[in-house]
């Protein structure tokens, strides 16, 4: 999947078609069409206010597009509420981490598993009548611990989630998203607030996630090192419009992208776009 020639043969798992979202007179996203092939790591970049997170919110059902459609594995997602989108197999993280602060790390992940839980809530009240429900609860607990171990959070399983250090909170948010057993993961600025060392670790972590969990990943990122390092294909938004798409190499040298990031008369020189990434 990494060679560009094979791309045509790949399945398009997420298809955004002519999506427009207007807030009154403001066009937040204008006529956006993009495809994300199965098993890829795709980047969605653009300067601040370009509408990247809005695109995420349209995909995950928080906004209903004014026009256009979003298809996931051939089924329409447009108009579904967020929890149905999650059931369909898309999960996401947030730019500003949104954990369940009063809950422990383990409970956070268990909450993520709930969407796949078959036992009804009242069955757990009568454990002797519904042993299967009780067994499922135990399995969820065990599975969540396993997932935490996989992401290196096993030791903090009983800690309250808000007590974790920042990087671990980001990882926990990803763990929680994975607990919903998604096929598609949307990461909103996973590297925000991380130092260069942590960003490099994140690169490997994202690749490992994709391989271990059979995911397709779409990520928003400002850190160009991360974007160029991990993404196989990149879409660039500016002011709600798609201005470029392509492999990291073509994006790096695309004059329109450079202009969007650095302004029109900036001395571009030989520095790549990533030379001075705009800080959020």
């Amino acid at each position: 999947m990494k060679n560009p020639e094979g791309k045509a043969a790949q399945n398009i798992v997420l298809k955004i078609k002519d999506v427009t979202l207007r807030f009154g007179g403001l066009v937040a996203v204008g006529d956006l069409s993009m495809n994300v092939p199965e098993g890829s790591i795709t980047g969605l970049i653009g300067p601040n206010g370009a509408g990247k997170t809005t695109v995420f919110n349209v995909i995950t059902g928080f906004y209903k597009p004014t026009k256009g459609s979003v298809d996931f594995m051939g089924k329409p997602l447009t108009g579904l509420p967020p929890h149905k989108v999650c059931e369909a197999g898309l999960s996401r993280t947030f730019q500003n981490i949104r954990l369940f602060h009063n809950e422990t790390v383990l409970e956070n992940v268990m909450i993520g598993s709930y969407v796949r839980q078959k036992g009804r809530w009242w069955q757990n009240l009568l454990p002797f009548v519904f042993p299967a429900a009780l067994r499922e609860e135990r399995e969820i607990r065990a599975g969540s611990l396993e997932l935490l171990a996989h992401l290196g959070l096993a030791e903090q399983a009983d800690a309250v989630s808000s007590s974790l250090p920042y990087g671990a909170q980001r990882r926990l948010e990803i763990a929680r998203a994975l607990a919903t057993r998604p096929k598609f993961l949307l990461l909103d600025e996973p590297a925000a607030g991380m130092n260069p060392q942590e960003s490099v670790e994140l690169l490997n972590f994202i690749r490992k996630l994709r391989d271990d969990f059979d995911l397709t990943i779409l990520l928003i990122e400002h850190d160009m090192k991360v974007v160029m390092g991990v993404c196989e294909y990149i879409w660039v938004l500016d002011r709600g419009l798609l201005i470029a798409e392509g492999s990291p190499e073509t994006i790096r040298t695309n004059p329109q992208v450079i202009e969007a990031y650095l302004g029109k008369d900036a001395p571009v020189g030989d520095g790549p776009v990533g030379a001075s990434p705009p800080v959020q």
Partner: protein
Amino acid sequence: MKTKIRNGILNLLSLGVLVYFLWWAPGNLDGYKLRIINLIAINAILGLSLNLIYGMTGMFSLGHAGFMAIGAYVSALLILTPEQKVTMWILDPIAPWLLNFHTPFIVSLVLAGLAASFLGWLIALPVLRLGGDYLGIATLGFAEIIRILIVNLTPLTNGSLGLKGIPAHTDLWMSYGCLLVVLLFMIRLMKSNFGNVLRAVRDDEIAAKTMGIDTFQTRVLAFVIGCFGGGVGGALMGNLITTIDPKMFMITQTYSLLMVVVVGGLGSITGSVIGSILVTTLLEWLRFVENPVTIGSFHIPGIPGMRMVIFSVLLIVIIIFRREGIMGTREFSWDWFFPTGAPGEKSETKGVGQ
């Protein structure tokens, strides 16, 4: 495993103590004290059901008195005999179809809960789309509507005259039996993954939606379960006091329940039980401030309602200095008494022994 056995034994022991106390109390305590002990259990049931709505699922509801009223009236109307009903309805004759309804107490208790939760469900559908203070205002309004309907639907409810002569079915066994069932229900519920989901909806609704939780349905469900508890509590209360009238179910009733929940700790099962003990006994004990007092040559006449003033001050003090209440969101655990016990192994939460 060892702690599990230990906790099991301790739970049984405290249950035994409770049973012994309930057996001992009726012969050795006067009626006033017995009523307070009964009220503690009933307020604990009501507090737990409000805590499920407010503390655990985060819906600020001020409608509990309304659901209590529904429960109390449904239960009373089902228990009263036709003869009693005929003599009681003075202003308007009773609706004929209601006259001959008669069920045993336990059935009326369940039906009271079901009626309250059905009404709760009807109210929840439009109202739970609101959040925060708006929800509080809307539920408060609905509770008041229920009360006013009871006042005016004379053929059904005997209006503001209320219902008298309800058989005193609520004894210690009944109220504490119900409390035990409610406690077990709450403990199992909050320990299950669904309990986690309720807390998730409270903590961050957007994140909960993203995790595939239908937050609206979850809130409706928690609200309806809480209303069931409110109805049962109201029914027990009616059968304890043997007289009910619409004035019993004014906002002050919700307010004292809110106090039970807030004093004990929002989101703590143990907290609601402790809160119920404290608030119920304090409300009674503080009655002395309403009596006339003579200190030296000063004579202070009794001021009715003074204890509510003191109670309000207490509540303000708690909100300022210990907002999380006595328990916060923690739960009682036998491990408190065994500091060397293995950490991490969570023990059974229990409220028995009170």
